[in-house]
């Protein structure tokens, strides 16, 4: 599903964040990406989403380069992703409305046609609202509902486009602990229902272990090689209660510390 080979990326006038980075994620896998702030985990997500372009190397999603966002990649951000002037229903139905807006208009630009599908119906919108438990707030505006309901709205909106890749950037960081666990469980369930490939970026060790079948550990930038932790026991909504879960959390904590140490030793100011 995602193929990064020799990928190099830097923001203008800044040291590179990825240098000759190679990483592969197969279709249907559940990935978590973890690392300290500034390590480039959100950048990696934006690159996959087609919102940033690599300076060198190759990045393929479903076998195609991503010069612009593709309609079958869903993106869920920590906050501010919903249209404040649209109700919950209108926000979820955005894909449908845009699909109709584009119907009959010719495609412009390069790369695969990014426009949302025109065949999504209002019944599908209602079905996702019900599945995510937000049917009762369908006529409310984002400012009128809770943070958890807002993220449920964002998830419903992304799943309505029937993505084969779902990218989540710190999706539950601003929620309280119980709501967060609730939505993490929901994510596991929805993943099993839809089989969508997921990449969840997080700075939270427990979230990474709960959601990631495979966990990509990033250290200080620039990242050159992919450190991956296998987390085979993932997938059960009750995983949190298992000793294996806590062992994995401890292992990941160690790896994160090691990634930090390793980079420090390599950086030129380590001797100062």
């Amino acid at each position, binding site marked *: 599903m995602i193929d990064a080979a020799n990928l190099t990326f830097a923001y203008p006038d800044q040291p590179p964040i990825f240098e000759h980075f190679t990483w592969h994620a197969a279709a249907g896998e559940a990935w978590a990406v973890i690392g300290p702030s500034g390590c480039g985990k959100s950048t990696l997500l934006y690159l996959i989403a087609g919102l940033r372009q690599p300076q060198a190397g190759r990045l393929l999603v479903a076998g195609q380069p991503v010069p*612009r966002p593709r309609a079958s990649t869903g993106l869920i951000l920590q906050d501010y992703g919903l249209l404040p*002037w649209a109700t919950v229903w209108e926000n979820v139905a955005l894909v449908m409305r845009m699909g109709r807006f584009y119907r009959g208009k010719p495609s412009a630009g390069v790369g695969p046609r990014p426009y949302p599908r025109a065949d999504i119906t209002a019944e599908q919108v209602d079905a996702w609202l019900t599945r995510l438990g937000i049917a009762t707030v369908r006529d409310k505006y984002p400012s009128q509902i809770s943070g958890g309901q807002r993220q449920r709205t964002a998830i419903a909106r992304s799943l309505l486009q029937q993505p084969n890749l779902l990218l989540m950037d710190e999706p539950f960081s601003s929620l309280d602990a119980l709501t967060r666990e609730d939505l993490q469980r929901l994510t596991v369930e929805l993943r099993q229902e839809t089989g969508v490939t997921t990449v969840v970026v997080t700075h939270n060790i427990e979230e990474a272990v709960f959601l990631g079948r495979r966990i990509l550990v990033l250290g200080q930038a620039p990242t050159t090689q992919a450190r991956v932790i296998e987390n085979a026991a993932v997938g059960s909504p009750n995983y949190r209660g298992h000793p294996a879960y806590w062992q994995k959390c401890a292992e990941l904590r160690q790896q994160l510390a090691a990634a930090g140490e390793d980079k420090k030793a390599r950086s030129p100011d380590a001797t100062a």
Partner: protein
Amino acid sequence: MRRRELLLAILALIVTWQLLAWAVHSPVLPGPWAVFHAFVREIPRGLGWHFLVSGWRVIASIVVSVLTAAPAGLLLGQIPLLNRLFSPIVYIVYPIPKIVFLPIILLFLGIGNTSKVFIIFIILFFQILVVVRDQASALRPELIYSVRSLGAGRRALFRFVYLPATLPAALTALRISIGTAIAVLFFAESFATTSGLGYYIIVESWGRLAYPEMYAGVIAMSLLGLLLYFVVDGLERRLAPWMFVQ
């Protein structure tokens, strides 16, 4: 409820007016009944025509200023380079009382409709420009990313993000500057013209000491302001209901 409160407010104003008229007891302040009479009598005799002329001038200015200032504000708000280039100019021009340019505008555009529409236009233009620009620059990049990730191209972004984000801002700017627009119109119409409510009030009534007619003109101008205010307010509630929820 809201309607009843408005009616009560109007009633209170009329009662106060009547009490003042009795107290002053002078032809300079006729009572509401006399003015109402003059108002009805004068509508077919020119007042209605002047009202339409003034209304046309304000509405034309509003349309031109929204159509130019909203896209300009959107561009400035979304393209930092453009904003850096133009913000010093806007910063300097914005607080200048544009009415002082009236003599110059009259020299260049003559005493017809164009000069009146233009003076109101430059006042509204900067009000709308600044509010829309600030609204557009406050649009979170995360929001744009999300909508783009759903497959939005430039046209869909405009239709589903930029338009709904800036239209209410333009209306808010309009609503708060309609009073100024009409005040300026009154001033611009009060000399060197033969039509409009300003002309009717100053030249046709005040100049002839026709006090009830003068007050009828004042009422007509107030009605024009109120009417436009209500229209913009209603549009705002209709087009941006999310701004009015608890």
